């Protein structure tokens, strides 16, 4: 693969939700994300941030356009191949943490490696390391319901990076956290970006959060502005 290729690229992305009144959530978006970026998608609620993240994260298929990773189009891959692609290439952090409630923090972090078929010893070591990066090495045996919201989101970040993805997509990662905890999470994401070269693409409408991004892409009514 050519080094000139961006890590991820959206070309003419469009997403229209069918129904009585068709809603165009994303319209004609072109976006390039380079390796090592710490980029925010900004915009008010309903502007299409989550939809665009879902499209770039291959969780949803575009109505028009395509998503490319290192020059390779992935938008039309079969569901199983897309799952494999996400498993190897992407990490996700969700607004509502979305940890598996029946697994401990350590087991949650391990899970992408379980899906990859990594052996128990190696994946435990990797999960413990990821937990230590987010400062929760002492909380590995706790189930999510025994962790605070901020701790749960840190575990979610550890889960997103444990398999060393090319990019982490985070949809409003601080929206459910208080400002102090949110700031701490952003510190963590920045540290991972700087110290471990993890590429982040995250969405937010919070100016305080957006001010931490190195690049901000504005989305209004499903279209990129500025």
């Amino acid at each position, binding site marked *: 693969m050519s080094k000139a290729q961006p890590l991820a690229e959206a070309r003419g992305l469009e997403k229209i939700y069918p129904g009585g009144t068709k809603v165009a959530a994303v319209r004609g978006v072109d976006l390039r994300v380079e390796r090592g970026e710490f980029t925010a998608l900004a915009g008010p609620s309903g502007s299409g941030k989550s939809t665009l993240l879902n499209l770039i994260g291959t*969780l949803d298929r575009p109505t028009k356009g395509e998503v490319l990773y290192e020059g390779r189009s992935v938008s039309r891959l079969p*569901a199983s191949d897309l*799952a494999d692609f*996400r*498993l*190897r290439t992407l990490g*996700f952090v969700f607004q509502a943490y979305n940890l598996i409630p029946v*697994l401990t923090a350590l087991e949650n972090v391990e899970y992408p490696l379980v899906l990859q078929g990594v052996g128990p010893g190696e994946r435990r070591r990797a999960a413990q390391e990821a937990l230590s990066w987010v400062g929760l090495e002492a909380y590995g045996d706790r189930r999510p319901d025994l962790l605070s919201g901020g701790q749960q989101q840190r575990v979610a970040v550890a*889960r997103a990076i444990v398999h060393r993805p090319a990019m982490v997509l985070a949809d409003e990662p601080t929206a459910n956290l208080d400002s102090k905890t949110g700031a701490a999470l952003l510190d963590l994401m920045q540290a991972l970006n700087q110290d471990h070269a993890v590429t982040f693409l995250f969405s937010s409408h919070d100016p305080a959060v957006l001010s931490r991004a190195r690049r901000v892409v504005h989305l209004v009514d499903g279209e990129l502005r500025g």
Partner: protein
Amino acid sequence: MIRLAWRNVWRNRRRSLINVASMGFGLAAIMFGQSLLRSLQVQLIEKSTGSITGHLQVQDDKADLVKMPDRFIVDPRPAAAALENDPRVRASGGRIHLTGLVSTPATSVGALICAVDPEKEKIITDMHAYMTQGDYLGKTAKGLVLGESLAKRLDLRMGEKAVIMAQAADGSMGAEAFRLVGLYRTGSESFDNQIVYVPLAAFQELLARPGQVNNYVAKLKDIEQADEVQKDVAAALKGLPLRVLSWKQIDHEILGVKAFQDAILFIVLCVVFAIVALGILNTQLMSLFERVREFGVLMAIGARPRWVMRLLLVESALLGAVGTLFGLCVGAVLIAHFGRAGLSLPVGEALSYFLPFPSVIYMRPNWTAHATACLAVFATTVLAALPPALRAGRLKPAEALRHV
């Protein structure tokens, strides 16, 4: 996956326990039904063959009737030799079963006369166990054993004589006086009122048929060998005007009853399986709806649709395994208990007209049938999870993540 599936199973503990209980008690009920029916059928066969039929009979091959052959075996020695030389035969002996008339000064009654060799008959059938007075013919040359109720009808007391009349070989009516030496009571109306026992030699003399019998009966060491012994004995007697019948051909109505009971049990089993399947389907559908978002997360982090399907199927299989194990234990304990203590049922009364039959069923396991039921319950739980699993496999990650 198994660890995650196992924890998911117990995520809603109460619901899973209710499911395990419904599966377990369903399976236990199935096992109980299988065992009860099997025990009933085995006891029915044991009683029928043990009261009169025996396991195998050699008869004249031109006899029209199988239960009471209307033709005599003039020379039963080849049959005796074939049966006595077979190591699978516990005992064998010649008999005459013939209708006749029993007369006393008070009255005359038509009866089925069973002329037997008393010592052999004690091994072949268990009628001697029903004796209430005297002994089972013993060594009395012209002794007579009757049911208590028949003796009462004949107004005949122990030590008194009755005349037995039957059609002799030349067509004339043979008659001979026999002394009442024993009374029995089986509780079966047809036995106690109709069947009389006399020594074989004396009855052969009455019929002017020395050495002749109309059936040569055998009791086997293992009734399950009846078919193969029948085949071997028939081969040994090939060329002679004889036929070899197993109890299945003589008491064929028992097989009909068995088939009927098995059919009813099968219908009941289908209903139980349907109930179990609906329970599992309901549980898994609820589980699916509750966890759509979670499946979305799993898919987002890289789980393939097929993997999510497998997760649901494994959860169901684990639930099924626990339920099956629980049911197996409950069923086995119930069967073991009623195998020792017996289960009192009015079945003896229901069958008493035809056979001496006890009212207590001693349950015995039917492991082949139980294993089939366990597998079927387990398979039902897995199959019932298939529709929700397929549905989960078709979820789209973005839509699943938006699910509330």
